[in-house]
């Protein structure tokens, strides 16, 4: 479960301060799918980054399974992120010089597992994301859809409970977007907690249970 209470995030640049998120209160149950909906600059990506522990809030608390990720020392926060959170970025964020399989194994390297076990996990994740046939292709040679599937495989490889997706369809055509949504449905059925930050209307008609949280100017808007 993810519990967010009175969460604020602002950036200081010189003497000016810009507030990105204002007093966010949100509880996401285990297995729930949440759509953070809002226009560009509304703060949804920042909220996702805060949940992933990629940055720290200015104030407020953020608990993941009772663990305050923003307060944990780096070693524990990193472990929590590695074990429980899989992240899919808008721009895929792949290492272009590595192959698909090599990109997917990145989250598993610090686990001190045997290479054979890592390869097994990678194979499973590639199959799940339907990108096995490109396992040895360099990331730089993939199409947008293939890059997205690689990013999904990488997010799934450590079998996390929480999947965070930042504008997952922003760089995909409709066909690939629908494929991605179908994949998310499968993950939902497997009991994963999914948080999607998007402004894509395709997510308004999901065929599986979900909750839409509109965000405007850094605040959750009551519907």
């Amino acid at each position, binding site marked *: 479960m993810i519990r967010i209470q009175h969460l604020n995030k602002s950036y200081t640049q010189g003497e000016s301060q810009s507030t990105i998120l204002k007093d966010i209160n949100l509880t996401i149950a285990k297995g729930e799918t949440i759509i953070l909906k809002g226009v560009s600059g509304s703060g949804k990506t920042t909220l996702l980054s805060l949940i992933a522990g990629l*940055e720290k809030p200015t104030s407020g608390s953020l608990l993941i399974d009772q663990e305050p990720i923003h307060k944990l020392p*780096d070693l524990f926060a990193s472990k929590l992120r590695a074990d429980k959170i899989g992240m899919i970025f808008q721009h895929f964020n792949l290492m272009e010089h*590595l192959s698909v399989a090599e990109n997917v194994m990145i989250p598993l390297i610090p686990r*001190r597992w*045997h290479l054979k076990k890592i390869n097994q996990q990678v194979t499973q994740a590639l199959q799940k994301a339907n990108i096995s046939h490109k396992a040895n292709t360099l990331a730089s040679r993939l199409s947008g859809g293939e890059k997205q599937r690689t990013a999904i495989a990488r997010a799934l490889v450590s079998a996390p409970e929480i999947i965070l997706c930042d504008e997952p369809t922003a760089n995909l055509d409709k066909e690939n977007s629908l494929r991605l949504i179908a994949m998310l449905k499968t993950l939902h059925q497997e009991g994963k907690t999914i948080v999607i930050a998007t402004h894509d209307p395709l997510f308004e008609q999901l065929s599986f249970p979900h909750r839409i949280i509109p965000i405007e100017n850094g605040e959750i808007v009551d519907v």
Partner: protein
Amino acid sequence: MFNRAFWHFLTLQLFKERQRHIATLLLSTLLVFLLSSILFISASLRHTLTQTLKAQPDFVISRTQGGSPTATPLAWADELAEIYGISKITPRVYGRYFFKEKRESFLIMGVDFLEEQTHQGLEQLLNESDLKDLLSGKKMLIGEGVKRFLSANFYDNEYKFLTPKGKFVTVTIAQTLPAKSNLLSNDMIIMPLALAQEILGYDQEEVSDITFNVPNPDEWQNISDKIASLHYDLRITNKREVAKSYEHLYNFKGGLFLVLFIILLATFLLILYQRYSMVYSSEKRQIGLLRAMGWSITEVLQLKFAETLLITLLAFLLGVVMGYLYVFILDAPLLSAIFLGAENLERHLTFTPVVELSTLSTIFLIYALPSITAVIIPVWRVAITDAKEAML
């Protein structure tokens, strides 16, 4: 963290980004090569000079008049013999013989066969040949530079010296001195004492200087003072002073060495700055991504440290091996000329292989530590920032 999967990933990183690493590796190898070449030459020269000095007599006395050296009376050797604590008194005859038409000169050294000390060292150098037999009659031993010069002028077996009295003396070449002694013997001609006196214009009762030993080092100062007071025009020099002057001549603090060294260090600092900046420009996103994938700061540092250490060690090994081959196998073409300066004879110096642990540690400290630091510090600074910011 340092398990097989880690090394596998490290290898992938190094191999797949080889274009970026190769540039760093090549620059670093070149730098270590130059640095090690300079230090190898310096260490080798110092070693050769130390070894040469070991065979030198403790003291040398000569006559100076009006500040210039002049012929030393042989009678001074008898006066020395009366002082208690002195041994192995040896008169020496030497001087430069000029070739007017070529404007070049050789150093002629006369050897007294009745005196053991001087020619024992020479015999060792010539692989135990009997020096007396070798130089019986009018014969000479010549350095490699002299040999090349004479051959170029068609004097393959002998040379006719012109004495100051206008008389020609034909001297046969007995042997060439070995290349390992080139630092000192390149332009040297060794011949019997009487022959050297004749060619250099000394009377039979005159020599260039007189050498002797004082076995008790505690007596060096007393005896030195006593001898200095014998004659107002007597100049006395001891081995330590000679060693110091050699040190000054070849020490790495010497001008050219220092200039080369500073240029190298300046280049190195530029490379380090470039490497430092590279972390911010091209590796920042990668570090942020690793952090986002659940890598801790320590794990990111371990990866980057291992990556840099491998490249640094490889460049270090390659550079040192190349430096060794360049200096000790190829005799450091170009660089040796800079070190040894202009000579009246072209010098082909063979460097004695000397690889001291201190030299290797100096190279490692000068090169490896700053190289690793120049990567680890920016990596750490990027790793401790928010992963989101690093990925931007």
